[in-house]
Structures are given as C-alpha cells and as structure tokens.
C-alpha cells in the first residue's frame, strides 16, 4: 500500500444538515484515481448512499443475526449484560458469606460449601466480571472514540464473546452440579493438585481460566490493533483521549500477563490429567513455580482491572469539570509507568513463602513506587475539578467517590508492600479490605460512573439522575460500612478464607457491621437495576451529546448506527467536539456498498489504506463451540484434545477460507 500523497484536508460539516464539504480521502494504490474523483465529486452523503451504508452494515434479523453479528456494539452490549449477571451471582455469593460470618461458630453453611462459595466469588469477580466487563466497555467505546467504523478484527471479537460465555457457564454449571471448584480463586498447589483435590472441581476451575484468558487475549489484540491502526485521520498519539491511551496500555499488559496464568493452569491440568510433576516437590517440581506464574499474571491483573477505572474517571472528570484534563502528558506517562511497574511487583504476594529477604526488598520498593504515578493521577483529577466549573451529575459523584475510596486502598497497598508488615497483614482481613478498596473503589465506582455517563450513548435513553444519586449514596455508605471494619478485623488477627471463627476473639461486632454494609450494597445494586429498566421503558430520550462532552463517540447518534459514523471524522485537537462545536471536520471516500474501514499510521494517524471489514459470519460461533468442546472434553479425558482438534480445524478453516475476489461487479468501488 502506498502512502497517500497528502494528509486529508478537513472539510466542514454542519451537523444539522449532515452534509460534509470537500475532503480528500486516501486510497489503496489501484483505487487512487477513483477515490480521488469520489472526493472531488460533490461530497454529500446522498440518501441513496446512506441507504447503501445501512444495507451494507446491517445484520440478519432474529437469532441468526444474533449468532452471526460482528458489530462491536452489539457484542459489547451482550458482553456487558452477561458480565453484569455474573457480577450479581458473585455478589450473592458474597452475601451468603457475610451471613455465615455474622455469628461465631455459625452453621448456616458447611465448610465444604463455604469454600466453594468463596472460590466462586473470587473467581467470578476476577475472571468473569471485572476483566470482561471493562474490556466490553472498551470494545464498545474504543472504535467510537477513535472514529472507526469497526474493530480491527470483528469476527475475533464475536469469537471471544462466545468463548467467554462458555467458560462462565462451565464454572457456574459446575457449581450447580456440585463439581464447582473449592480451592480458592488462586488454586495454590498442592491443595489443587491431583493428590489433595481429586475429582473434577479443580479441572473446572483450570479450564475456565483457559476459556476466559483466550477471550481476554482476543479482545486485547483487537483493541491494541484498533487503537494503533484505525484512529481517525489527525488523531495523533498525543491527541488520543486518555481512555484510549489506557486501553492501549491495558491491552499490551494483557498480552504480556495472561499467558503466564494460562501456563500455570495448563501445567496444573497436565499434572492432574497426564501425571506430570511440574508442581510435585517430591519429584523435583516446585510449588513456588505455580505461585510465581500465577502472580506474574495476578498482579498485573489488578492493574488491568484498575486502569480502565482510571480511563472512565479521566473521561468523566473533564466533561463535568467543563475543561480539559490538567496534565495530559503526566497522566499518559503515569498510566504507562503503572503498566510497566505492575510487572515488577508480583513477589509481594509471596513475602511469606520464605524467598531470599534481600531480594524481597526490591519488590517492596517497586510496589511502593506505584504510589507515585497513582498520586500524580489523583492530583490531576482533583486539579481538573479545582480549576474547572464542576457540574455535579451522577457520573461526577462516582468519580469523587472513587477518589475518596480508592486512595484508602492505595495507601493500605503501600502498607502491605513492606515485607515485615506484610508478614503480619498478609492473608488477613486487612488484605481483604485493602483489595476491595482498590478493586471496588478503583474499578467498580468508576464503572457505575461509566454506566451513568455512557448509558445514553449505549441505549439512547437517559438514566434517572435522582435514582442515580440515591444509588451512589447507598453504595458509598454500604461499601464503607462493609469493608472498613475488615481493616480492623485483620489487625485483630482474623485470617482470610475461614468459614467460621470462635467466639471471644472480639471479631463479632466488626463482622456484623460488615454484614450490614453488605445488605446496603445489595439495596444499592437493586436500585441500579430498577433504574436501568425504568430508563429503558420510559427514560428521557438522549440526543447525540447529552453531557456536552468533547470526544468523538458523542458526535454520532445515540445509540450509534451499525456503521458508527456517516463520515470518518478528522481530528485536529484533543477535544474535537469542544474545538469544533458546530462543524466537526470529516472526510469521505470509504465505500458504502461494502464494509470498509480506514487504516491509518500508528503514531501520526496519517491515512494509509482502505481495508475491507469482514461481513457477519457463523464461523466464529462454530469455532467457539469447537474450542469449548476441546476444553470441556479434556476435563474428562486427555483424548478429547486429540479428537476435538478435528472439528476445531474444520471450523477455523471455514472461518479463514479466502474470499473469492468479487470480479467485475459493476458499480462497486472495487
């Protein structure tokens, strides 16, 4: 593909008429002349062309359309809904645990069941709720924010959802059939090994990991590629919204971190299924190998969950403070620094394993160092509010709530980074409190803020502000009532993962307060669900840009059409919709008769070429079924791996079967 002769010249567009003015598009080598003439010709999207565009990008109706769609917005919506349902299930598991712990020596739940419940809670929250839902929001928003018609690999995206769904169902169906895992979300060997965990409980866990990691890796390469090569012309790296920057960093982190846990779980499967000895100390294996592999993934994972929270807050704060973010460059550097540092501190989960003490000190320093980029970001958000003219709508409430709670989690994180202090706090309720402040404070508060903020874009309806504020306050109070006492429980010596405790330890009152907080959280989330359904049935209609925000996703209708934008926007600043309030520049030249996307250069976003984007296809679904067959089959027999490859090969071949060039159809661009 040749470089285009020139940067596209931004045209002017009146939003009311939606008539773009002259813009020069780029082209692939053979189409140069044709495209150029298209650009010179009257650049109005004729109603006929609009019809063509709609026709080209529409899905088949009904179930077939549901199974074959490659529209990133439809897939993201179902990803979000699925992950949220599992969030509710894992939340109910938490309520069950809180009820069990509300009294000493309670016999509401048996130890075996309790161990399953806390395993399900942790596993679901980490692998089936947090990572997928945050990625799903990115799947929805990244193409819109960078002004693209689709993701880079739309079919891979569909595949990823079905694989994820199969993994999530495997875990919960296993739980219902009483073969759910009971060895904790971390599944340390040898407790999870063949000797101490006979049966299929741990196999279900290990294969669920493989499912969700395949899904997450698919999303990560998709997002990274979309961000690097599909940004609107003119959206240089230094003009990318912070949301997009975060997801670039997170995608790279995901690609580097997740293989470690897949390795950990695959070796575990191999020990259990084939009788290997990776984690058998008696035969020269090592249990610390498992822990290193798990936490080499596990710690970046925390930031893979937290950074998208940063992304939400970084979009919400400027919009409602009515000014650009303070310190764009320090923010970007901080995000990159967190991504980098997060790979250098996994050992702080292993201080109590007796690794060499001097070496541990390095990880203390690296863990504490993360407070610097985090502190810089906190400053920038508050400074943005301080110097702006804040309008307190629900999304901003969540952002403020995020700062108040997350900073506590960050500071207790500094505490547990100290080797000697961690030897006291590790595996106690102090750590439970710490990471709930980090994960709920750092990701769930921003996520609810993001729902409030982007709900109009997702659905075309506004959420109720009044119910939203109620929900926020219930959540904020409930969260602190539930989790703050856990700090004290930890300092009073209560270990994690105990199904009960003796009376007379002084733990009852704090456990009871925590249980009460859990009930308030339950009310808050019920209110949210009510708000969503009420809004979907009778909420006020949302226009394109209800918050008067500055980024490109707000320049298209709510909800956006399948092709996202009538014309590809052209960007010349970090706040395109504030810079060009009436006349967002656009370019044209993308085909309307076939699915086509614009590929631009990685750093400067110069138009590079036009590339066709895949049509809907059933093969991602079939391939996901075949992958699920292999992974679930191997729980029961190693031969499933061999026989399962046959349908998988067939499905993948059909998926990637080269399309015949459409020769000689008149009227099409090519």
């Amino acid at each position, binding site marked *: 593909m040749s470089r285009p002769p020139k940067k596209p010249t931004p045209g002017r567009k009146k939003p009311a008429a939606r008539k773009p003015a002259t813009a020069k598009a780029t082209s692939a080598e053979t189409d140069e002349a044709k495209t150029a003439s298209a650009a010179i010709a009257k650049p109005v999207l004729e109603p006929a062309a609009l019809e063509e565009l709609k026709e080209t990008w529409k899905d088949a109706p009904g179930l077939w359309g549901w199974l074959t769609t490659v529209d990133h917005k439809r897939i993201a919506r179902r990803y979000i809904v699925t992950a949220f349902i599992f969030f509710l299930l894992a939340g109910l598991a938490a309520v069950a645990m809180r009820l069990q712990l509300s009294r000493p020596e309670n016999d509401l739940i048996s130890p075996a069941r309790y161990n399953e419940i806390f395993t399900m809670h942790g596993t679901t929250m980490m692998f089936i709720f947090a990572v997928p839902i945050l990625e799903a929001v990115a799947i929805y928003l990244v193409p819109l924010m960078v002004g693209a018609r689709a993701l880079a690999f739309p079919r891979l995206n569909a595949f990823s959802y079905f694989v994820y769904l199969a993994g999530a169902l495997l875990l919960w169906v296993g739980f219902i059939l009483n073969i759910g895992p009971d060895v904790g979300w971390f599944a340390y060997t040898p407790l999870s090994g063949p000797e101490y965990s006979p049966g299929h409980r741990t196999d279900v866990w290990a294969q669920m990991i493989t499912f969700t990691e395949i899904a997450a890796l698919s999303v990560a390469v998709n997002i990274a590629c979309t961000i690097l090569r599909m940004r609107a012309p003119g959206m240089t790296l230094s003009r990318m919204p912070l949301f997009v920057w975060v997801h670039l960093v997170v995608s790279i982190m995901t690609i580097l971190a997740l293989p470690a846990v897949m390795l950990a779980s695959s070796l575990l499967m191999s020990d259990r299924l084939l009788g290997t000895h990776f984690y058998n100390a008696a035969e020269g294996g090592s249990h610390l190998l498992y822990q290193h592999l798990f936490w080499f993934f596990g710690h970046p994972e925390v930031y893979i969950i937290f950074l998208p929270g940063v992304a939400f807050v970084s979009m919400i704060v400027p919009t409602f403070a009515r000014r650009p973010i303070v310190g764009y460059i320090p923010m970007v550097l901080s995000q990159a620094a967190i991504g980098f540092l997060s790979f250098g501190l996994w050992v702080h989960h292993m201080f109590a394993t007796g690794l060499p*003490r001097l070496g541990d000190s390095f990880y203390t320093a690296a863990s504490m160092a993360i407070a610097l980029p985090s502190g810089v970001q906190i400053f920038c958000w508050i400074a943005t509010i301080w110097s702006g003219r804040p309008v307190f709508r629900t999304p901003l409430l969540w952002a403020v709530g995020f700062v108040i709670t997350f900073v506590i989690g960050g500071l207790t994180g500094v505490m547990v980074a100290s080797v000697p*202090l961690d030897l006291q706090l590790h595996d106690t309720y102090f750590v439970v409190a710490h990471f709930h402040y980090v994960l709920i404070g750092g990701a769930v508060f921003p996520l609810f803020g993001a729902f409030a903020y982007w709900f109009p874009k997702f659905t075309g309806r506004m959420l109720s502000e009044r119910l939203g504020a109620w929900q926020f306050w219930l959540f904020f109070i409930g969260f602190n009532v539930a989790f703050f006492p856990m700090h004290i429980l930890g300092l009073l010596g209560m270990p994690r993962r105990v199904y009960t405790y003796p009376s007379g330890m002084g733990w009852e009152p704090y456990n009871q307060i925590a249980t009460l907080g859990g009930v308030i959280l339950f009310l808050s989330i019920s209110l949210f669900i009510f708000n969503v359904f009420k809004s979907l049935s009778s909420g006020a209609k949302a226009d394109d840009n209800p918050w008067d925000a500055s980024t490109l996703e707000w320049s298209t209708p709510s909800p956006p059409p399948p092709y996202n934008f009538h014309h590809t926007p052209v960007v010349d600043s970090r*706040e395109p919709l504030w810079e060009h309030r009436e006349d967002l520049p656009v370019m044209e030249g993308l085909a309307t008769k076939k699915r086509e996307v614009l590929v631009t250069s990685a750093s400067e976003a110069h138009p590079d070429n036009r590339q066709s984007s895949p049509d809907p296809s059933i093969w991602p679904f079939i391939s996901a079924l075949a992958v699920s067959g292999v992974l679930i089959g191997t729980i029961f027999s190693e031969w499933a791996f061999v026989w399962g490859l046959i349908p998988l090969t067939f499905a993948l071949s059909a998926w990637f079967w080269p399309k015949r060039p459409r020769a000689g159809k008149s009227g099409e661009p090519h």
Partner: protein
Amino acid sequence: MKRAALLMALALGACSGMQTPLAPAADQAEQIRSIWDVMLWVTSFFYLLVIGFLAWAVWRRRRKETAPPRTQVHDQGLERTLAIWAGMIVAGLTLLISWSFLVDRSLASTQDDQALHITVTGAQWWWRVEYTDGTPDKQFETANEIHLPVGETARIKLMTSDVIHSFWVPNLSGKMDMIPGRENVIDITPRKIGVYRGQCAEFCGFQHAHMALTVVVESREDFNRWRNHQLTPAAPPASPKHALGKAVFKAKACSLCHEITGADAGGRTAPNLTHLASRRTIAAGTLPMNRGSLAGWISDPQAIKPGAKMPNVPMSAAESDALVTYLESLK
C-alpha cells in the same frame, strides 16, 4: 485513615491480649509494630492532604455555569504544584521504604546461636511440634501447643506434611509459610509472659478455620519443669477404669494414628497424645480441654470439625466413658 486511627485505639483498648499484631509480646512483633506506626502516620497525612484538596476543589466551584468549556488552558501553576506533590510522594515513600528495609534487615539477622530449636510441621488440620535440642533422649514431640522460655530466642523450623500452611502467632511474629519441599525458619524472642493464640494463615482445605495453636511464654523455671514432664512417658493407668480406657485406645482405631509414649501406641499420622491433658485445647484449638469436650470430640469428630481426618469410631457408652477417663489422666 484518621477514622482508622480512632477505631484502632478503641479496638486496642478493648482487646489487649487478643490475637493481634498491635499488642506485641516479642522482639519481632515489636519491630514490625514500629513500621505500622510510621505507616499509619505517613499515609494518614497524605490521605488528609488528598481529601482536603478534593473538598476544596468541590466547594470552591460549586455553582453551575452554562458557558461552553474552555479548550485553551493555562495550568503552569497547577503543574508546578504537581511537581511539588510528586516530590512529597517521593520523600514519603523514601522514608517508608528505608524504614521497612532497616527493620527487615534487623529481623533477618541471626539472633542468637544459643537458640532453642523447635520444628513445627503443619498438617491438615493440626500442628506437630518437636523439640529437637540435645541428645535424642532429651527430644520430645507434642501437638498444637508450644512452650517458650521468656527472653530467649527460639528458632522454629517450619515444614508441612501435606499442603501449604502458614505459621502465624501475631503477637509474637509475622507469619511464615510451610511449603512442601521447602524448609522455612522463623525466630521468636518473646518478652512477655502469657498465653498467645496463633492460627493457620494460608488456606489449606476444609478446616482451615479450625487450625489454631497455643504458644505459652513462661519463665525459664516453668519451662524446664514443663519440658522435663513432657520427656516422661505417659502415666500408667491408676484404676481399672483407666486400664479399660487404655485397652479401648489400643483395641479401637485410635492407636493406628495416635502415639502415647509408654502405652504401646505408636501411630504417627495424628497428634501425639502422651500428655494430652496438659494442653489447653483439643483438635487444634477447636475446643477447650475438658471432659465434656473430649467426650463430644471422640463420639463425633465429624460433627464438630467436618472434614477432619479423625473418623467417627463406634464404641459403647462404657468404652467411651473409660477412654475419656484415661485420656483425661494423661497430664
């Protein structure tokens, strides 16, 4: 954090003597406590700064304006403040990292080569305790209860016979894992006479919650008395009822797993019961040591500690009564 400090003070007032790292009774816990204090002050200071700035930002501009947002901004002042803020964070972290490092170095340094040597082996769900000093006839084994002489360093070797456990007596020291294939060591130098509770801190299966141990810190004289007593074999039966109990112990499944020195019972997979009745608890801290607990535990261990490795052993009421009487006599 300020709330934390307040609540902490309350909690401490109410619960001194509990299982907590905040009431240290040994050098190791004391040193770690000093890090906690520094951490709490430094982090509280930073938290108050953040919340203060946030509150100022929110109240300063709490009015609605509808003018379109500015895109040209001049933030030089804020950027300078950001640089100062970053400098403060670096200073705070340097202090904390150095403090933590120095304490860690001091904890890791060899304490005393005259240390008392003990091996504690974690098992699902109890602790095997072996005193390994001296010639073999001066060595003995007990379970779930450790006695330490005050003011002397004990060097405890930590092993496991099955899955990973973690040895943790918060008032005395931080925790350390017991990992198959590895040997970890922890030093404890107790400074206060008393009884301290500890418990397994690494999830280890069904009864992780009921895997506690007792550490008794006592004077050197009391310790010697206790040790000399532990070295003796179990007392012979004092009455026919005791003798019946002993016979039941040997005839039923008990002696397959449990050892009673001097009673011809040599099982090694379960706690040594030679001086069972001298301990404060049974079933690894699950029940207090008394006749009722013993009877209940023997009649149905699976009801008290579901999943425990001790099976329900069927026996008649008379047998059970005699067995409990015998066990009670194992002072």
